[in-house]
């Protein structure tokens, strides 16, 4: 169904888009903001996980006597005394669990670092020390934790009923008619999210009900999973997560340790607080899986014509997890012919998950590198090759029009700001002292996801307002932008608006993932504000009221005053005072047209109510961008640095210029890490990660990113939602990997098809 909205831009709301500082920033810098682990829990016990050193095998015995003898010890929970739990379905099958394998249910060991016990004690130090005394005996067998290694399993195509392959046009003709063909395999490693806030669960049982403090991107789903696991009505479970110290996809679906902590708290009749350590964060939850892109690109007369793209992604032995990034690469340009497939390789690791732009980072690294190679081979400027292949006229897979399409504009604006016109088709030509400089570019794309959302809004006659919803702020600015929307729509001061999120008792919402939340929850908030507004107008225009007889469609709200088109005014506070009890309370909702009402009914119970994605039956929908980078490679040490990055991005309406920019620059910086630093390395002998801490798993530091500029390209979109806003959270990182690889080639003449790209690969330079 085609959606067309009267977007808020037309309602003249100058506040939306403004770079209002985050409302919680003072609380955060002064330490007043409470993250999950900061909630005081009277009488809490402290827990630590014990994990397996072996990657695969059977737990033949577990000696807990020494641990139990430590003074201050309360409980060692293993498969022997773990209570049975209800159905633990994954999010793919109606549940909310990250993986289908729950370790404490059996003696099976299926990946290194799997939970084998939980140790609970009076003090965290006691638990930690006792955990070291738990002696699991494991009969280990050979295992493989990497897909990029001899002996890895064969790729298996993703079943067609879960993801149909893409076939468009005549491939043979496209490649036969090509003047340039580039073919290759691009590989990306396992990476881990590493939010600064560790995973944590504090569980408290009271009167048979459960309250869990969990840093979460999905409080409604977490509530559902806990209710199912412990056989409770959802009304008896409350999940709280008011502030989250970064998540990036790692705090969405429910992880096993949360269930274990809740079970222990119930057994002990005391609150239990469990921290997952940094190194355990590498194994007890999710990661970005390794992947291989097999790509063939055809160019004819300076235009991209054919694409063959197979992505092979890593999964676990027990779940088929796939990230169909070919859905994006096939739609980025106006290909004449396309053939795209997805496959997975099973490995002995925990089930992979979503990590910032999960489908796009590996696939765009491949595609945008391949296109750069094709441009060089064809003798075309890489910028022109992309512009000549514009898909602005419509999605080349579905044939549908875009709700809006900003890629060409981003390429032009980015090129201009960066100075791409200085680019010369010659490698090793830009030498500054001991450094070789180079320029690279790549397109960025992220699908627009929207999902059903709800929000509650209350406006009192003192003009203070309270907005609540089971939505999430992992640092990206949700609190701030929804407050802006309410203030703008009602003409009341922002200071008087309280926003309370991250509480599963509030209006239900889906996961804050796929950059959907601002576009979805924001639309529900707008709906709530509009409902209050209609109610107020109704009150003010009734017989004998101050604005009786005025045109209800022409009432302006500003500074606490309502103004009719005939110039009459009414004080908003007085009008709200006319409402029963002096308060107006509404629930705002928003459902994308592409999501059926049937699945919406699931929102309260499961937190999973369907999603509208890149293609609906009427439109193709995506945010776009263009990344331009300058790299410098040291001629002797091979060190690779990124002195300058410029990105231009179009993602519909900007809701807050400051928070949007920080999402984009944060993503761009992560892209530097993603292609130059980050790799979770595997000791293949033991199928075990070797660099599981931040001393050994590198992410960029300030000195690595001296200049990062994000240009926000204004874009009007009338078909996404009433805000006209797409998602921005995941867009910034998507093109950076390839842009840097391409710039490294320009600087040195060295092509790298494997990430990360490091000094050892540059030593020939």
């Amino acid at each position, binding site marked *: 169904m085609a959606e067309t909205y009267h977007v808020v831009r037309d309602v003249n709301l100058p506040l939306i888009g403004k770079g209002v500082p985050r409302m919680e920033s003072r609380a955060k810098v002064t330490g007043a903001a409470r993250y999950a682990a900061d909630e005081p829990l009277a009488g809490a016990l402290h827990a630590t996980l014990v994990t397996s050193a072996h990657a695969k095998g059977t737990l033949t015995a577990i000696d807990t006597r020494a641990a139990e003898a430590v003074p201050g010890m309360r409980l060692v929970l293993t498969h022997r005394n773990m209570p049975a739990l209800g159905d633990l379905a994954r999010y793919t099958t109606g549940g909310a669990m990250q993986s289908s394998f729950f370790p404490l249910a059996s003696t099976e060991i299926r990946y290194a670092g799997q939970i084998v016990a939980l140790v609970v004690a009076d003090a965290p*130090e006691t638990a930690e020390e006792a955990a070291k005394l738990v002696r699991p005996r494991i009969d280990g067998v050979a295992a493989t934790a990497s897909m990029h290694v001899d002996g890895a399993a064969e790729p298996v195509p993703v079943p067609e009923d879960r993801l149909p392959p893409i076939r468009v046009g005549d491939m043979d003709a496209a490649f036969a008619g090509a003047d340039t063909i580039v073919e290759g395999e691009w590989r990306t490693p396992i990476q881990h999210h590493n939010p600064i806030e560790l995973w944590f669960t504090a569980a408290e049982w009271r009167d048979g009900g459960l309250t869990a403090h969990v840093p979460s991107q999905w409080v409604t789903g977490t509530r559902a999973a806990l209710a199912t696991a412990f056989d409770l009505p959802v009304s008896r479970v409350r999940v709280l997560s008011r502030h989250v110290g970064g998540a990036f996809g790692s705090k969405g679906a429910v992880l096993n340790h949360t269930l274990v902590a809740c079970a222990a708290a119930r057994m002990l009749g005391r609150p239990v607080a469990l921290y997952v350590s940094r190194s355990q964060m590498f194994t007890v939850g999710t990661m970005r899986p390794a992947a291989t892109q097999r790509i063939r690109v055809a160019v004819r007369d300076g235009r991209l014509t054919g694409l063959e793209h197979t992505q092979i992604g890593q999964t676990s032995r027990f779940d088929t997890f796939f990230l169909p990034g070919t859905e994006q690469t096939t739609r980025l340009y106006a290909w004449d012919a396309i053939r795209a497939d997805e496959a997975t390789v099973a490995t002995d690791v925990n089930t992979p998950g979503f990590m910032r732009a999960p489908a796009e980072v590996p696939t765009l690294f491949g595609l945008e590198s391949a296109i750069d190679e094709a441009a060089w081979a064809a003798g075309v400027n890489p910028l022109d090759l992309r512009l000549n292949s514009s898909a602005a006229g419509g999605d080349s897979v579905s044939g549908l029009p875009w709700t809006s399409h900003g890629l060409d504009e981003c390429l032009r604006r980015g090129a201009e700001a960066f100075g791409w016109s200085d680019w010369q088709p010659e490698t090793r030509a830009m030498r500054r002292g001991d450094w070789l400089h180079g320029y690279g570019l790549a397109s960025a794309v992220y699908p627009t996801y929207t999902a059903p959302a709800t929000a509650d809004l209350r406006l009192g006659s003192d003009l203070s307002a309270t907005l609540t919803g089971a939505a999430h702020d992992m640092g990206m600015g949700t609190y701030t932008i929804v407050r802006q929307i309410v203030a703008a729509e009602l003409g009341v001061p922002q200071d008087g608006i309280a926003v309370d999120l991250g509480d599963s008792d509030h209006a239900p919402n889906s996961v804050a993932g796929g950059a959907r939340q601002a576009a979805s929850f924001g639309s529900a908030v707008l709906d709530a504000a509009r409902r209050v507004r209609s109610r107020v107008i109704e009150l003010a225009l009734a017989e004998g009221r101050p604005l009786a007889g005025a045109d209800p469609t022409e009432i302006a709200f500003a500074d606490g005053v309502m103004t009719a088109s005939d110039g009459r005014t009414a004080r908003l506070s007085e009008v709200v005072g006319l409402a029963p009890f002096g308060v107006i309370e509404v629930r705002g909702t928003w459902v994308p047209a592409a999501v059926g009402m049937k699945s919406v009914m699931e929102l309260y119970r499961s937190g999973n109510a369907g999603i509208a994605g890149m293609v609906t039956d009427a439109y193709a929908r995506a945010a776009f961008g263009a990344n331009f980078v300058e790299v410098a490679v040291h001629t002797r*040490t091979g060190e690779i640095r990124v002195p300058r990055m410029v990105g231009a991005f179009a993602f519909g309406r900007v809701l807050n210029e400051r928070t949007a920019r920080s999402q984009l620059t944060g993503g761009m910086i992560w892209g530097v890490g993603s292609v130059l630093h980050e790799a979770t390395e595997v000791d293949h002998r033991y199928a075990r990660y070797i660099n599981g801490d931040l001393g050994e798993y590198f992410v960029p530091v300030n000195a690595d990113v001296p200049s990062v500029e994000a240009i926000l390209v204004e874009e009007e979109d009338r078909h996404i939602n009433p805000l006209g806003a797409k998602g921005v959270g995941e867009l910034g990182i998507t093109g950076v990997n390839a842009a840097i690889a391409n710039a490294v080639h320009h600087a040195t003449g060295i092509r790298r098809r494997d990430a990360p790209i490091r000094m050892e690969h540059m*030593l020939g330079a």
Partner: protein
Amino acid sequence: MRTFAYERATSLAQAAERASEPGAMLYAGGTTMLDLIKLGVYRPQRVIDITFLEDPALRTIEVAGGTLRLGALVKMNQAAEDATVKDRAPVLSESLWLAATQQLRHMATLGGNVMQRTRDTYFRHPDWLDLADGDAAEVETYGNTPYGDGRLTTVRQPTRLSAVLGTTETDTASYPGDFAQGLVAFDAVIEITGPDGAREMPFADLHVRPADKANEGDYARLAPGEVITAFRVPLSPALARSTYVKARDRASYAFANASAAVGLEMDGDAVADVRIGLGGVATVPWRAAAAEDVLRGGPLTEETMRAAAEAAFADAVTHEANAFKVPLGRNVIVQALTTLTRMEG
């Protein structure tokens, strides 16, 4: 984490006395020690904090009798910024500037710096021992590590960060620090106070090479309770014309994949004196004496620099993951020498 007692030393002699008792360790800035304790690598029963000792000899930087003397409690930052050090021994200042972060440099002492342990992942994460062959046995080691029984050698393997010089078949863990390279290159001497009084030792003798180790705890040639009190570096023209080159994966806050502490004195067109210390590539702070020999007395050209760099790694033993350290290490030497040729002599 196991509990341990914390004590503040009241005098140098008392510190040496207390630290000589079994299970005791000296505690300076704590920046690497606390990490290792939390990781379960060090398991002290008692730590003796020496940072409150007022003794000026421990805290000052001075030049006397042709020697630069740096007290062991001098903070990394203080030495990096010191005008005399910058002027007379730039390599030492630079090596400290390029190490760790400003926050760490404000906490960490020079004595603690040279005593830091390898960043080898197998060493830092004792849970690898769960996969090791044989039964665990408690063997007394420095810091009471779980590694005395030698089982670590049955599980660890070379990684990308491993050393290529001074290794054995079972031990390729590299020495990570930056400051030590300048000390080893310029014949520094360390002053030591122990329970039995004071002594001196060439800095080059401090760290034990894997081939000479009795066990993993046998790491530095200090007897129980011995405290490093100062570093003495003879001043020389080569020290005054010196530099530190560090190749690393990030622009800051990363250990060296390869580094070179190099000093040069020219006599006309001939090399009068040259010093080359290498970091990131060796199991201990490494003096590239063979490379120095190639250059000393001859001209300094691209060709001789390359030849010296070749000589420095003639005995290198590489593995797939760390083979790049040989070409990298050579290039780092050439880079440092080239930088010095651009500097006024």
